[in-house]
């Protein structure tokens, strides 16, 4: 847009000419104006100039960022941005046209309408006509007023939708012609309801009652009760029966009036399928359902009987014993073979161990105490609830090395199971070899020491 620029000098010249002022004055004015504008911005952060717009200082908040090369996090400090909003009148003038934003669908629709006939030519028009004719025929069958003009004008997409319902509708109209005689047959149902069942009771009941009411009071009253009291009794009885038949009669007449209403839908039905369909299954479904439920009931009964029989047998005869005797004697055999092996092993062990201990016990000889035997980690007084085993646990990670501690403190400990509280105990430093029980020599040494300690405790 901006090919030409209005330079400072040109502006000054124009201003001087228009305002009838010398160029000097115009120049001073323009310079002063710019300078004052900046000053004003500094002061108020907002300057409004009538006929032009507002200059404003917008604060930009500090934000986090990342140095692209190093990947370090940086904080970009906040600063002020100069924003200019032109006055509304100028804005409108510059924007030129006042075109409002239109919904896109409206624009595309107008385009489609104009483009479609140009691109596709004859074929779509023929199709449209055919479809329109079909629709008109269908509508004529239905007896509705056809709207030709609207459907011709509609675009393709909308026409496909009415075409789809057209296809299913045509078979619908063929079908009823074949089905119509079938439905005339059920018309036999209606006379059944009318003629035999409901009409006969109507005729009988009122007639009998009406005849009986005059006869009944007359016959019993005259022979049985000759006392003056009888006359009120029949009067009370008479009104009671009369209302009951009168109320019963309309209730029975009502179904006779309902019957024709059932006939009416049968005549209207050929127009619409679903009504007939609904009637058809009604006659068929109950039969199927009855069979199904009957079968289910029978099967359930059989299952129950079988279950009862099974339960009875289970409780009254020793089926479990019977089964065990017949089939599964192999499993217990396995268990028997497993156990004796273990027993034998244990027996062997005990037999081997038992002779050794009694032989060695009398041989135990307490070694003499020597302070220089070990290097020491620490000297710790015996705590109240502590033991040598726990001390070894604390220092060596296992209770098993407590005999070493006993060995290092033979001069102070007489009975390793009962150490006096507060006795300073030297904790010896054990080498890896001494701690490793997989080495035979160290293990034997530990056993030795333990035996000695136990012997000391028994003394």
């Amino acid at each position, binding site marked *: 847009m901006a090919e*030409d620029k209005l330079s400072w000098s040109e502006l000054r010249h124009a201003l001087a000419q228009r*305002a009838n002022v010398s160029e000097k004055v115009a120049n001073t*004015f323009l310079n002063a104006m710019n300078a004052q*504008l900046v000053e004003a911005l500094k002061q108020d952060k907002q300057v409004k100039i009538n*006929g032009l717009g507002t*200059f404003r200082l917008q604060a930009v908040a500090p934000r986090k960022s990342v140095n692209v090369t190093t990947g370090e996090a940086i904080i970009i400090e906040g600063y002020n941005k100069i924003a200019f909003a032109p006055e509304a009148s100028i804005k409108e003038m510059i924007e030129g*046209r006042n075109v409002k934003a239109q*919904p896109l669908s409206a624009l595309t629709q107008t385009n489609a309408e104009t483009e479609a006939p140009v691109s596709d030519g004859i074929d779509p028009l023929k199709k449209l006509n055919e479809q329109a004719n079909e629709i008109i025929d269908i509508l004529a069958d239905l007896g509705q007023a056809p709207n030709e003009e609207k459907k011709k004008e509609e675009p393709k997409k909308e026409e496909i939708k009415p075409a789809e319902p057209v296809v299913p509708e045509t078979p619908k109209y063929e079908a009823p012609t074949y089905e119509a005689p079938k439905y005339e047959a059920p018309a036999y149902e209606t006379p059944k309801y009318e003629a035999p069942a409901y009409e006969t009771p109507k005729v009988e009941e009122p007639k009998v009652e009406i005849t009986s009411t005059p006869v009944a009071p007359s016959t019993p009253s005259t022979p049985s009760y000759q006392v003056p009291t009888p006359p009120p009794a029949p009067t009370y009885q008479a009104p009671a029966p009369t209302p009951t038949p009168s109320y019963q009669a309309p209730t029975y007449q009502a179904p006779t009036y309902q019957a024709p209403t059932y006939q009416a839908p049968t005549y209207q039905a050929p127009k619409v399928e679903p009504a007939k369909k609904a009637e058809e299954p009604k006659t068929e479904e109950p039969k199927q359902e009855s069979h199904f439920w009957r079968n289910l009931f029978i099967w359930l009964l059989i299952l129950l009987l079988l279950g009862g029989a099974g339960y009875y047998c289970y409780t009254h005869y020793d089926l479990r014993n019977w089964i065990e005797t017949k089939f599964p004697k192999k499993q217990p055999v396995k268990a028997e073979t497993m156990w004796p092996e273990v027993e034998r092993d244990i027996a062997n062990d005990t037999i081997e161990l038992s002779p050794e201990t009694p032989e060695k016990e009398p041989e135990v000889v307490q070694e003499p105490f020597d302070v220089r035997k070990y290097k020491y980690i620490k000297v710790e007084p015996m705590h109240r609830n502590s033991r040598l085993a726990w001390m070894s646990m604390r220092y060596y990670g296992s209770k098993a090395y407590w005999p070493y501690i006993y060995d290092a403190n033979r001069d102070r400990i007489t009975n390793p199971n009962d150490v006096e509280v507060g006795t300073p105990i030297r904790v010896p430093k054990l080498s890896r070899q001494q701690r490793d029980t997989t080495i035979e020599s160290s293990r034997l040494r530990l056993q030795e020491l333990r035996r000695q300690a136990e012997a000391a405790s028994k003394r």
Partner: protein
Amino acid sequence: MLTKDLIGLIANATGLTKKQVEELLNTYNAILRDNLMSGKSIQLQGLGSLEIKERNERIIVHPKTGERTLVPSKNQLVFRPVNNMKDELKKL
């Protein structure tokens, strides 16, 4: 700050009367407007430049209804401050 105050400041700085300044300002605005309408951009020394920029048409989607609307292209008046002024006002 309103036009009145600016006029007062300019009058103080230049020694002109307020009426004169007001007239000058009005003519100044008229000149700017005319030039902008004729398609010229204006350079203001020590301040910046006023330009007219063309904005392309674009499609907006309404976030709730999902309706798409076309916003037509339009011209916009843009003020570009000079670097000096920018730096001067960056930190206050």
